[in-house]
């Protein structure tokens, strides 16, 4: 069973329904003490970094998520859920994240005025690491749906799973051992995204 962390930001049903579509069972989890019951965990989310950390704190979800990742079980962050894994974000001041992935989250600053912020729409991901199990069976380049103004800048190049071209190359997903995260929305990326969720559900 996969737990989808609900911390009061955005709709989680589409993630849950997408998992059901690919044959995986998933439940919404909103209490810290329940996190440990799941085999896999998804941290989704839309909205502001600071608010998200505040909500995670209020619901006492911070330590349970850190412990879950440390336990070696498969975890997937999506969009804001990717950003929250990092140490800091510069969104609206400087804020601390969960710190399970070294690096920081920064704002897009394109030199070219034709490049808009938010980075919104379908863009290609290029693998930066071999044998990424999430991308199994997906032909490259795969197009996925992005909607974000901030992106992660991992401290260790080895954590970068895919890169995407927007105002230079940025890290569009990460992978370290049991921890995966995508800046794009697999649950909104049609067949390609469903396949990634299928792959995640099938891990282990």
């Amino acid at each position, binding site marked *: 069973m996969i737990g989808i962390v609900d911390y009061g930001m*955005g*709709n989680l*049903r*589409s993630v849950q*329904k*997408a998992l059901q*579509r*690919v044959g995986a069972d998933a439940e919404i989890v909103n209490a810290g003490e329940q996190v440990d019951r799941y085999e896999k965990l998804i941290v989704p989310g*839309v*909205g*502001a970094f600071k608010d998200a950390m505040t909500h995670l704190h209020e619901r006492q979800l911070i330590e349970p998520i850190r412990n879950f990742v440390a336990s070696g079980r498969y975890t997937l962050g999506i969009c804001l859920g990717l950003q929250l894994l990092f140490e800091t974000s510069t969104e609206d001041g400087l804020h601390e994240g969960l710190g399970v992935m070294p690096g920081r989250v920064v704002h897009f600053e394109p030199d070219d*005025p*034709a*490049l*808009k*912020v*938010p*980075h*919104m*729409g*379908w*863009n*290609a991901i*290029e693998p930066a690491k071999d044998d990424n199990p999430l991308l199994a*069976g*997906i*032909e490259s*380049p*795969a*197009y996925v*749906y*992005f*909607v*974000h*103004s901030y992106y992660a800048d991992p401290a260790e190049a080895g954590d970068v799973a895919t890169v995407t*071209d*927007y105002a230079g190359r940025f890290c569009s997903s990460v992978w370290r051992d049991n921890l995966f995260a995508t800046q794009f*929305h697999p*649950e*909104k*990326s*049609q*067949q*390609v*995204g*469903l*396949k990634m969720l*299928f792959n995640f559900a099938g891990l282990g």
Partner: protein
Amino acid sequence: MCHMLTRRIIPCLDVKAGRVVKGVNFLGLRDAGDPVEVARRYDEQGADELVFLDITASHEQRDIMLDVVRHVAEECFMPFTVGGGIRTIEDVTALVQAGAEKVSINTAAVVSPAIIKQTAERFGRCCTVVNIDPKRVSRDAFEEHLKENPGLAQDMCPDLGDRDVVWEIHTHGGRTPTGLEAVSWARHVVELGAGEIVLTSMDADGTKDGYDLEITRAVTAAVGVPIVASGGCGSPQHMVDVLRPLSEGGAGADAALAASIFHYNEYSIAETKQYLAERGIPVRQAQAVQM
């Protein structure tokens, strides 16, 4: 080929009392009025995003729209925006909780601009879309409207230079002038928190003669958020014109919204994208994947 952010092609669906209206004409569709069926079909065709516009007149029927949003979100794994009739932050919240990826605010943005800020603060800029509907009016008429609309419109005090014609924002489907000049209003809504603008030219809307390139160029050049061009699309060439970068003589829009050319099967999404790709506009083709 260089891989980059593709231009989005967005079919727009009018929904009234929970049903898609304006005759969507897909072959073999069991129920052409069912928003979920229609959305699923566009999903298969590779539409990049969908816009659902609630044209239900009465506020009491909003719950029906929430049901539509809920079903679409559960069945279609693609981004979609919901607009029409949003008046308060509570309306926005209900739509987001039902599964809308983005909400698009129109009249309420003019009547009480604070809703833009509230939406951006609560759900992020990326969720906050503002519709702006400009129409060409004479400078005299505009100055008249400016007098009739004290407060916001006058505070903005747009620099009209020596223009004889002004692009004035209208609400209620083009019927109500506001005294707001389109480019300065676009800048203002972005300052308040809009993460995207849907720009519908009231002059071009319904003509099928092409998007209003002039106003689209002006707004695209003025703001740093994505612009969805809307109103007037009659052929894929019109999309080429509006999506081509400013630096190449186009209008620089990031996405093109269209209704009738898709609904009446004049062009499929795939044909349209093929046409755009052949003319150098970066687009995404639907990718089939084996589970």
